[in-house]
C-alpha cells in the first residue's frame, strides 16, 4: 500500500499520466532477426554514453527519469526498470515506444535524430552502479551467488510483471506456484519459457545468455523455497476476482446515488480509466485515490490572499506551493485559510456504500476503456 501511495504521489506531483506498460507480445523469431542493441554499440562508446553528462544521459534525465528513475532503476510495480532493456527490445522497438507511447505511456514525437540516437546509446549502456550481474560460469546454478545475480536480473527484467519477489504482480502470475517452475530442474524448463516467451499470454521473449538464464532459475527456485517457508503469508487479489458486479447497476449508481457524476465524467476525466488501471488497483483508486493534492487559499491579516496547492497542514502551520512552485508557510494562528479538497467526497461515501454498490461501480468503471 505504502509503495503504491508513493507512486501515486509521484504521479500527482509530476502531473504525468503514465500507467501500466502493456507489453506487446514479441516473438522469439522477430527478436532473433534483429541484432541486440548492445551488440551494435562498441563497449568504449557505451561507457562514454553512460556518463551523466552525455547527450543521451541528458535526454534520458529530461524525458524518462521522472518515471523510470534517475538510474533507469524503475519504480515498481508501476514503472518498469530500463536497465537491460536490450534483453527484450531492439532499437527500433524502443524508438517506436518512445514515439507512440505504450500502454498509456505518453508518446513523444519530438525525440528524433541525434538526440534519439544518443538516448538509445544511453539505454544500451551498462548501469553505472555495480548492479549488472557478473555471471561467469554455468556451474554455479542454485548457489547463493548465482541466485543473487539472478535476483538483480529478475528485478530489472521480470519483476514489473511477476512482482519483485516472484510471487505475482498485477499482470504476471505467482511463479512460486507455477507448474513450470515446480517441474523445472536447474533451469531446463524456465530457460525455454524465458527465451521463447509465451506469446499467447503476452509474455515477451528475452535474450539472455546461458549463465544468465541459470542465475534467473536459481533465484526463482530460492524464492520458491522462501514461499514454502512462509506458507501462511498474505494472498493477492486477481482481476478475475473482481467481476461480480453489474454494469448497468454500476452506471446507475455512478450517475445517481453515488454522486460520482458530480465531479467525474465517463467521457472526460475517467475516459479510458480501465486501460490505465485494472483489478485491485482500479478498485482502490475508485474508493480512495491516494496522493491527490488539495487547494488552499490563505488570507493574511492585511487582507491579501494567496492561493496554491496545499503542501502541509497541522494544527500549527499551513504550507502552500504557489503557481510558480515557490513554497510559503504561515502560522495557523496568524492567518485565515480555506482548504478545497474534493477528494473528501470519497471519504463521505465510505459509510454509504453497500458492497454490491462497490462491485457494480467497479463493473461499470471497467467498461471505460
Amino acid at each position: 500500500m505504502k509503495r503504491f501511495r508513493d507512486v501515486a504521489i509521484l504521479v500527482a506531483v509530476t502531473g504525468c499520466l503514465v500507467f501500466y506498460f502493456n507489453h506487446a507480445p514479441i516473438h522469439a523469431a522477430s527478436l532473433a532477426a534483429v541484432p541486440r542493441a548492445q551488440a551494435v554499440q562498441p563497449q568504449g562508446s557505451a561507457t562514454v554514453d553512460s556518463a551523466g553528462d552525455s547527450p543521451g544521459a541528458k535526454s534520458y534525465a529530461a524525458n524518462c527519469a521522472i518515471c523510470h528513475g534517475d538510474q533507469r532503476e524503475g519504480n515498481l510495480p508501476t514503472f518498469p526498470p530500463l536497465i537491460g532493456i536490450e534483453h527484450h527490445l531492439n532499437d527500433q522497438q524502443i524508438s517506436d515506444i518512445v514515439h507512440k507511447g505504450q500502454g498509456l505511456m505518453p508518446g513523444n514525437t519530438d525525440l528524433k535524430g541525434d538526440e534519439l540516437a544518443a538516448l538509445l546509446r544511453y539505454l544500451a549502456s551498462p548501469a553505472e552502479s555495480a548492479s549488472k550481474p557478473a555471471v561467469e560460469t554455468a556451474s554455479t546454478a542454485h548457489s547463493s551467488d548465482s541466485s543473487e545475480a539472478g535476483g538483480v536480473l529478475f528485478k530489472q527484467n521480470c519483476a514489473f510483471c511477476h512482482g519483485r519477489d516472484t510471487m505475482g504482480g498485477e499482470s504476471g502470475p505467482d511463479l512460486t506456484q507455477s507448474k513450470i517452475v515446480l517441474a523445472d530442474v536447474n533451469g531446463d524448463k524456465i530457460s525455454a519459457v524465458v527465451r521463447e516467451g509465451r506469446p499467447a499470454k503476452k509474455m515477451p521473449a528475452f535474450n539472455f545468455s546461458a549463465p544468465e538464464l541459470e542465475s534467473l532459475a536459481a533465484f526463482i527456485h530460492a524464492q520458491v523455497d522462501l514461499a514454502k517457508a512462509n506458507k501462511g503469508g498474505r494472498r493477492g487479489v486477481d482481476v478475475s476476482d473482481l467481476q461480480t458486479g453489474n454494469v448497468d447497476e454500476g452506471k446507475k449508481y455512478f450517475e445517481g446515488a453515488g454522486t460520482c457524476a458530480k465531479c467525474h465524467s465517463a467521457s472526460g476525466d475517467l475516459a479510458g480509466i480501465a486501460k490505465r488501471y485494472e483489478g485491485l488497483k482500479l478498485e482502490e483508486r475508485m474508493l480512495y485515490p491516494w496522493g491527490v493534492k488539495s487547494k488552499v487559499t490563505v488570507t493574511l491579516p492585511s487582507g491579501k490572499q494567496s492561493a496554491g496547492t496545499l503542501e502541509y497542514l497541522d494544527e500549527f502551520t499551513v504550507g502552500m506551493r504557489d503557481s510558480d512552485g515557490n513554497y510559503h508557510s504561515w502560522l495557523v494562528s496568524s492567518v485565515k485559510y480555506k482548504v478545497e479538497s474534493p477528494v473528501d467526497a470519497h471519504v463521505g461515501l465510505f459509510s454509504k456504500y453497500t458492497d454490491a454498490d462497490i462491485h457494480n461501480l467497479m463493473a461499470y468503471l471497467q467498461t471505460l476503456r
Partner: protein
Amino acid sequence: MELRKDALRFALGAVLFLCAGPTLLTAQNLDPADLLKPRADSWPLYHGDYSGRRHSSLRQITPQNVGNLSLAWVFQTEQNADIKSSPLLVDGVLFFTVPDNIWAVDARSGHMLWHYNRPVKGEHIGHRGVAMYKGWLYFTTPDCHLISLNAKDGTVRWDKVYADQSQGYWSTMAPLVVGNHVIAGVGGDLDNLPGFLRSFDPETGETQWQWFATPPGGTPNGTTGGTTWMTGTYDPELNLLYWGTGNPTPVLNGSSRPGDDEYTCSIVALNPDTGKLVWGFVVSPHDTHDWDAVETPVLVDADFHGKPRKMLMQASRNGYFFILDRATGKSLLTVPYGPVNWSLGIDKQGRPIPNPDKEPKPDGRLIAPDEGGLTNYRAPSFDPRTGLFIVDAEFSYSLYFSKPADGTYGWAGGDYDLWSKGVIEAIDYQTGKIRWSHEVGPDGSGAGILTTDSGLTISGDAFGNVLALDTSNGKTLWHAGTGVGMQSSPITYLLDGRQYVITSSGGVLFAWALPHSSAAAAPSVAHKK
C-alpha cells in the same frame, strides 16, 4: 537548650538520612512490593502501575505552566528502529528497548550507562520494553528467548527459550512481574499456532505454569491463535491477572474454526500463581479481521451508574469500548467509539455479533476499521478526575478478501487499507459517549496517551508534534515538533523535585521538563494555540 539539642538531633538525623539516601538510590533494586504502590520517582512497570490507567498523580506541570515546557535532554539510539517501548524508571535509571537492544540511561542527564545488543533473525516488528524484579531485568527477543540481565551493567544471568521461532512464534512484549512470577507472552499469527502465557521463576528462569489460549493446531473444528503480545494488568485484591489475546488463525478465513473461537480476541482473567483461567470474555467472537484484543485492560474502581464497581475497560481494536465487572467478567457497557460496520449489534452478553456477510470474501468487503483497528498497542489513559477514558483512535476503511484458493493456513486472504485519520477521543465511561475529540492527522499518530492529576493529556500527532492537551476539553496547550510521529506511550516521573515527561520519536528519546527556575514556582503563561 532543649530546643537546641533537638535541633542538633534533627540535623544529625538529616545528615544521616542524606548519607544513606544516595546509597539506597543507586542500588538499582526494585522490591516487588514497590510495584503495588509505585513511588513518584519511579515508573517500575510497563504501564507505570498494575492498573494500566497511565494516569500520574504528579501536578508540577499544569495547564497553566505547560507553555514553558522545554527540553531537558535527548537520547539518540543511533539506529533505525522506532522506539515502541515504554521505559522503566528505577532508582534514577531508565531502561528501554527496540528489538535486539536494551539501553540503560541516566534519567537526570540522558547519558548512557550501558547498551545490550543481541542481533538475531526473526520478526522485528517492534519491542515494548523490559520488566524488573529486584536487581534483574527481563527481556524478550524476536527468537522467543526470555533473558535475565543484571540491571547494573546489562550482563546476562540466564537465557531461556520459551517458544519455537521456526514454527512461527516471535516476541515483542514487555513481561509483567507479579509477586515472584515473571509472565511473558508470544506473537505469531502467520502460522496456525496456539498463543500462550508462561510464568517464570524470576531467580532461576524455571517455568512455573503455562496457559494456552487455544488448543493445538489440527484440533478438529478448533481454532488456533490467541497470541499474548501486549503486557497485561493485575488486581492485587482479587489476585487476578488480566490479559488480552490476539486474533484466531487462520486469520481471514474462519471456515475451519466455526463458533466463537475462545479464547482468541478475548480478555481473560487468570490466577497469577497457577495460571488457571478464572473467566474469559470474547471481545470479537469468530474474528476474521485480525483484530487482536490485546489493548490495555485498564482497571478502574469507581461508581458505574451509581454503584461502586471494580471495572475493567478496554478500547478494543475491533472498534468497541468495553466495560466489564472485573471480578466476574460480566459486561457493563459495550459501545462503538468510531466507524464500525462489521457487526449486527450487541448480544445479551455484551459481545458484538459478527455479520457473516462482512467476513472477507473473494470479491472483497468494505470494512471499518482496517486491520490495524480503531486503536492498537498504543496505550490509552483513564483520567479519574474527569471520568474520561482517552484513546488514540484511527478511523479507517479497508478491503478484505479471502477465497477458497487462499487456504486455511496463516493469513488465508489479503486486506488493503484505503484511508484513515487519527483522532484522540475522550470517552465518558458512564455512557460511552465521546465528550471531546481532537484530530491528529492523516493515517493516525501511533502515539499513546498519558494523563496527569493536574489536568494534562500528553500524546502526539501524525506530523511528529508532541502535544499537551487540556484533559477537560481536548484543546492544545503546548506542542513541540520532533520530526516524526511518536510510536510509543509517554511516561512521567519526579526526580529532585522536577517533573519529567518522556516521549520518543523514531529512534530518539526526549525528556521534557519545566526550566529549573520555574519547576518550583510555576508562573502562569498565556496558552499557545
